[in-house]
């Protein structure tokens, strides 16, 4: 480990939790209830966030909505140019999504390319009634015409900066931070 990188916290643990709860409420509101709702997280941290949203909905609505996981690696548009093959994670869509309202959950929305891949992948599983997008951080910088329906926090980050979301289950703490790219190893 080199010198500690210069980081600015966007969300601390408490704000993180509060934001996810609000997003869960907004998802239920957008869907007019929990009927037909499916929450799908994008590997890896989107899956953790999706699980938190599902349990938050369960607390309030007393109902467990189906949740899935999507790994978009095999649908990336830059596979022809990347070097060693990226690690492929598990995809798990537990219900037939035909006619359902699928909410994609991811940690950071940046270029929009991940979401493009996710939309293509979901189409191979069926034809949902609607697909919505919920992200914890929208950092701007889109390269495709993709916009989120539900946003935890919107910031405007420079291309030289990176936004990292950390979750308890993987990183040992909940936080969202922004740092200069060079400073992060």
């Amino acid at each position: 480990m080199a010198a500690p990188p210069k980081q600015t916290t966007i969300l601390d643990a408490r704000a993180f939790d509060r934001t996810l709860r609000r997003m869960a409420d907004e998802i239920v509101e957008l869907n007019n209830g929990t009927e037909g709702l499916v929450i799908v997280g994008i590997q890896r941290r989107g899956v953790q966030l999706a699980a938190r949203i599902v349990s938050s909905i369960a607390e309030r609505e007393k109902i467990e909505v189906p949740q899935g996981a999507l790994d978009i690696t095999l649908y990336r548009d830059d596979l022809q140019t990347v070097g060693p093959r990226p690690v492929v994670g598990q995809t798990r869509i537990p219900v037939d999504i035909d006619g359902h309202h699928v909410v994609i959950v991811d940690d950071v929305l940046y270029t929009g390319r991940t979401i493009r891949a996710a939309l293509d992948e979901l189409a191979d599983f069926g034809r949902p009634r609607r697909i919505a997008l919920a992200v914890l951080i929208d950092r701007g910088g889109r390269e495709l015409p993709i916009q989120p329906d539900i946003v935890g926090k919107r910031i405007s980050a420079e291309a030289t900066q990176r936004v990292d979301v950390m979750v308890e289950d993987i990183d040992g703490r909940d936080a969202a931070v922004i740092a200069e790219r060079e400073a992060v190893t």
Partner: protein
Amino acid sequence: MTPSLGKDLLGLERLSGDQIKLILDTAEPFKEISERAIKKVPTLRGATIVNLFFEASTRTRVSFEFAEKRLSADTVNVAASGSSVSKGETLVDTARNLEAMRIDMVVIRHGASGAAQFLADRIESNVINAGDGTHEHPTQGLLDLLTLRDHFGRLDGIKVCIVGDVMHSRVARSNIWGLTKMGAQVGVCGPRSLLPNAIDEMGVTVFNRVEEAIEWADALNILRLQLERMTAGYIPSLREYNRVFGVSRERLERAHRDVLILHPGPMNRGVEIDSDVADGPFSVILEQVTNGVAVRMAVLYLLSGGKPELAESAKRGGGER
């Protein structure tokens, strides 16, 4: 740093334990793709793969073809009979001609040991060995490893006995090398005439009686007995072989615990394996076939790697941050 496989997959002897683990771990998420309504991902779109089969094969060729198609590659099958190979063209000329048509990968099965290596040294495309002579059949070895790992949750420390014609079996060699690298204990059992002379140097336990092998093993990998071995004088008769080395239900029931049953196919029922074992509760023979597609998808995906000089730019754009 994740390990990479390099340009070709020629055998398990030269892979490291980390590389084998990478393939098995990568195969895991690929299983799910074959369960989807639309069994296809766009990963190898635009890649052209030639399946060059100089020996008859149904299972392996079909398995590779499914793996290629489910990754969206374009595939061409070339069989030795009915091609220019039967007109006397050399292996290298065949491959160079194919390469001149801008292909990306070759899957080769050939009767000569070392054919895949020979080809890999001479063409730019990725080469995958789908069985070369009595040398190796790496994707079969890998799918056996994956099936075993699925059932035992690990490979380290498990005991696997390979039963039958080990000498002529490329499946046996790939299994022995793959399993020992992953920390499994390997036994072999068969008529002395069908065990290689150098078997003692391969780090395996030799069993002369199949009963002892069953008593020792957590899993048996039962090899197909090539019927031509009898005419060649390696064994007295198929009936005698079945009586001495055949895996029957009675023999399995005498063991004190459950023994998992694998077979690479095609089976000679009533020779090396009895029907009630092949179809019995401990048989994972069809799971092996299912896993074969996932393992081959994983190998194709891992070998299809892009160009190293582009890796740097990809790091910047890879993933949303």
